[in-house]
């Protein structure tokens, strides 16, 4: 595969929150370099306080690094004049769907970003309908947010972002407050964004099975990126991951433990189907041998 153009590029960025009373605050990010190319579907893992949310907030100029620089599509995020251009290219979805919805009617909320950008009314209408259809919520356009479930609200929040037609969407634990059904809905929507619309997706998550769906996983710990590779490679290092206080997907762990016990299984299993296939062939093989 030809290397695609780097869309977001963070170059040795460090960040610390402003100091109070002369106390020198600790570095939340410590010389992170990461580049994300167009069309990638990337997960960022890390336990609480590892700096992963802070890192994500650098991608659309919510935070400006204290050292180093971030560029989005060639624009430095420190350039204040280009702020809206950057935020239009890189949208961000947060954890709590309730706290992201501004208007009392769904379609008005989806229109919010476009209204802010001064898009002409007819075009807003068209783009709002389009965004609602993409997240499969078109028939709810006249509902009030309080009538929707958490998963539906989160999809509305996503629609509000993709109405801007961004090239990249950063999601900060979008499924953390949802029930399993809502989580599945939202993950399906996110996957569609990436596969069908070609939107670059960066998802911060605590759920390892969500990370396993991505095609790249970065692990952040103590303000540094400690692993950055394919999910297969990252989750292959089960012990290293566990050492950092993180988990691997259940199936990966199962196969890893079985392998430790001496069963002949592949090095890293990511999905349930893979696990079933591996176990099946193992059992069949075992039957033949025995």
């Amino acid at each position, binding site marked *: 595969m030809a290397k695609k153009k780097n869309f977001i590029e963070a170059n040795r960025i460090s960040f610390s929150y402003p100091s109070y009373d002369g106390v020198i605050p600790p570095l939340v990010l410590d010389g992170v370099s990461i580049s994300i190319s167009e069309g990638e579907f990337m997960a960022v893992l890390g336990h609480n306080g590892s700096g992963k949310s802070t890192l994500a907030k650098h991608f659309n100029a919510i935070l400006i690094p204290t050292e180093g620089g971030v560029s989005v599509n060639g624009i430095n995020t420190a350039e204040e004049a280009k702020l809206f251009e950057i935020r239009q290219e890189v949208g961000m979805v*947060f954890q709590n769907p309730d*706290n992201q919805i501004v208007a009392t009617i769904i379609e*008005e909320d989806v229109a*919010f970003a476009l209204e*802010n950008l001064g898009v002409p*009314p007819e075009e807003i209408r068209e783009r709002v309908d389009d965004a609602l259809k993409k997240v499969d919520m078109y028939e709810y356009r006249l509902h009030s947010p309080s009538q929707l479930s958490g998963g539906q609200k989160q999809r509305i929040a996503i629609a509000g972002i993709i109405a801007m037609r961004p090239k990249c969407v950063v999601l900060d634990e979008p499924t953390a407050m949802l029930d399993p059904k809502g989580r599945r809905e939202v993950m399906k929507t996110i996957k569609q964004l990436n596969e069908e619309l070609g939107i670059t997706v960066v998802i911060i998550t605590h759920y390892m099975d969500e990370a396993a769906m991505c095609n790249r996983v970065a692990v952040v710990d103590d303000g540094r990126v400690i692993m950055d590779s394919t999910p297969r490679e990252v989750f292959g290092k089960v012990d290293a991951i566990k050492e950092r206080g993180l988990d691997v997907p259940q199936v990966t762990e199962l196969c890893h433990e079985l392998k430790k016990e001496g069963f002949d299984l592949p090095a890293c299993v990511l999905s349930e189907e893979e696990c079933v296939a591996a176990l099946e062939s193992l059992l069949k093989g075992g039957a033949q041998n025995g």
Partner: protein
Amino acid sequence: MLKDITFGQYFPGDSVIHKLDPRMKLILVIAYIIMLFVADGLLPLLVGAGMVVLFYALSKLPWKLIIKCIKPILPIVIFTAVLNIFFVEGDPIFEWGFISISGKGVLTAVLMCIRIICLIAGSSLLTYTTTPIALTDGLERLMKPLQKIKVPVHELSMMMTIALRFIPTLIDETQKIMSAQKARGADMESGNIIQRAKALIPILIPLFVSAFRRADELALAMECRCYHGGEGRTRMKQLKLTAKDWIAALVVAGGFAAVILINIYGPGVFRL
């Protein structure tokens, strides 16, 4: 449940009144209220009452809604009537000890009652047939000229919108906090007023803390969607005055004219 209350008492419908432009409705309600106070006799006030009845009929709302909106102000109506009956001076028609009732007093009381009832019924019709969001929208656009004298019109209407949006969320949250405190043994139902007010503190504090946290997150989410105040903002929904609106305006103008004419040329009966 608490959250099912539609704030502003909007009743969904598909009538002509529902479809009027909120700006026109606001202006007409204000004109109507002025009209009620211009009317100085029974006859012109009946014109006003007739208009309310006409508009209610057109809105196809259940009639019991009129009663529903008048009920809470009934004590005020009765109080005003009683005051007027006893304290307006004129030729007494009934005297008993120090109490004297004049014909003028009775007339003033009746007129006042009709006026207040029409006023409440008329303005309730506005909130019954207009969604809070349309109302905010209408207000924002009507007040736009005030922006020139530095009135923060957009900010005010944004605040209204967000307040409306978060009312159900915060009600939900209040219920959750109440249950949580009850589970910890909080007693909110017994004791005198002061004790009950004190019992509210453990509910209000977490509610405020969470409201501030929500505000913080909302601000961040709004920033991510390029919010930068009212400058250069467009709106998806454009308000347009249609024939319906102008007809409604004509009806109200007609009523107003009738009231003024009756005031000047009408018969002198039942007038102040």
